[in-house]
């Protein structure tokens, strides 16, 4: 997405679909592999979905159980992405602007959710936030149950989407011109005024991109959620788990319909992220 046209190109304008036959090996490998690995599976899903009777498709896609999983999946993901938008901004800010002990290590550890397998994340979150876990035992007396509830689903989504927001905002914050802030101060603006009027506006595209990336990741998340949730329909069942349950019951059309809905929404988010990044790049100039 963020790959801009380079200044120097060895080959000028070529049509991607024009001359497959006369292409060099890297071209053939790229296009061939993409076709087998990517286009074929995606079209298998879409064609399977299109053979479904539209009325039937709609009925499965909007059945009460499916609607309940969309609610858990998308609403929880959005809330998690927004919470991380706030705290991720704060973390990026603190890492860029201040100095404190162990900063380098903490900075490196932000990427942990990228590297940690999701089943491990789910396992440890379920343990830490269970009623007798390290953190859960403090919440239980307050009547707050996290593991095996929708709150646990949200917790897993917070865990896996945090680095996306921090890592999108960090470079933008780093590059921000400090003179403008100083100018605002010297003109008598208060800290709050400077923050709201000078610091925040140029950060908005990056912030929205980060939130969209986090949301996208949370919507697709499976491994950590399936372990930390009880996976009960109408309670904390997410769409991905519903697909697996349908497959296990050999209900291929049910799985296909929910899968298509999920794929469609993922592609829409991808498009939105592309547009947001294009918008963000305009700010660079």
């Amino acid at each position, binding site marked *: 997405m963020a790959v801009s046209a380079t200044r120097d190109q060895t080959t000028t304008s070529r049509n991607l679909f024009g001359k497959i036959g006369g292409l060099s090996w890297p071209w053939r490998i790229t296009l061939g592999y993409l076709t087998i690995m990517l286009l074929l599976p995606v079209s298998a899903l879409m064609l399977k979905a299109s053979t479904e009777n539209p009325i039937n498709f709609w009925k499965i896609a909007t059945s009460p159980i499916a609607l309940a999983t969309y609610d858990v999946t998308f609403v929880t993901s959005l809330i998690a992405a927004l919470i991380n938008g706030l705290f991720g901004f704060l973390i990026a800010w603190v890492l860029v602007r201040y100095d404190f002990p162990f900063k380098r290590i903490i900075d490196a550890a932000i990427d942990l959710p990228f590297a940690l397998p999701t089943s491990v994340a789910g396992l440890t979150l379920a343990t830490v936030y269970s009623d007798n876990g390290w953190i859960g035992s403090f919440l239980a007396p307050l009547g707050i149950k996290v593991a095996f509830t929708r709150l646990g689903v949200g917790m897993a989504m917070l865990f896996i989407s945090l680095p996306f927001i921090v890592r999108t905002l960090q470079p933008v914050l780093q590059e921000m011109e400090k003179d403008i802030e100083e100018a605002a101060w010297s003109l008598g603006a208060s800290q709050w005024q400077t923050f709201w009027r000078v610091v925040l506006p140029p950060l908005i595209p990056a912030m929205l991109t980060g939130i969209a990336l986090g949301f996208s990741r949370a919507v697709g998340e499976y491994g950590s959620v399936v372990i930390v949730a009880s996976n009960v329909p109408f309670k904390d069942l997410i769409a991905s788990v519903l*697909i697996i349950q349908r497959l296990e019951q050999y209900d291929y059309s049910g799985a296909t319909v929910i899968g298509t809905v999920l794929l469609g929404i993922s592609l829409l988010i991808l498009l939105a992220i592309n547009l947001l990044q294009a918008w963000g790049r305009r700010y660079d100039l």
Partner: protein
Amino acid sequence: MTSNLAGHSFNTVSPNSQPYKPAKEHAWVKFVLIGIALAYLLLILFIPAINVFAQAFKEGVGPFFHNLTEPNFLHAVKLTVFIALIVVPINTVFGLCAAWVIARHQFRGRTFLISLLDIPFAVSPVVAGLMIVLLYGRNGWFGPLLGAANIKIIFALPAMVLASAFITLPFVAREVIPVLEEAGSEQEEAARTLGAKDIQIFWRVTLPNIRWGLLYGVILTNARVMGEFGAVSVVSGNIAGETQTLPLFVEEAYKQYQTQASFSAAVLLAGLAFVTLVLKEILERKTRIKDV
């Protein structure tokens, strides 16, 4: 700014930059903000991460090592490594080709091709698994054909390889494209005018330029392949001692109330994650030194 759905190739902050000391900011603001940030990280990231190790070694090192000698566990380790040995080289070759095609050419559909590459990041791993089932499963496109030829793909190794390859398809390309663009093509052209062949140009000019970015992409691919859970669990059938990878073993043991065994395996995967992060940090510094 470069960022992508994988979230891995974000430009990281230069370590040498001096923290900015604003003239008017009160000291307490700084401490409150740092405090909140650390508290949040502790609750969301650090306590869960430490917990993996604490649980695994709760009863000392003995039970931990005992769990590691279990046959199903050992099989899971072997399978996980085996899949990585197949997928990582394939996706590395593809990634290099795709990166070269995208970074060195202008053509219609270039933006489209870049967006295509991002699809595996956007798609839920479960949906990725479902797509493979719809292709190669018994009721899938190639199902009857494969059935007639007696080839088993779903609930067997080939599907697990396909699922892992799908999930990690863009990593290498995503890491190499920016480095390739950064390096420019002048050196390659110079080599060509001096009479070097394509292969020579690749080994002697291009590869040294992109080696750190490439290595980084390979490490990320490897970590994701070894840790992949969702896509693999859909297509594998999850049979202990047969089609169970390490991440699947973690879940299965946990569901069977063998928490100790589960955490022992989890520690191994967490160790892999730790090594990945350290290597990532080292490689990022290497690239940065080159920039300066």
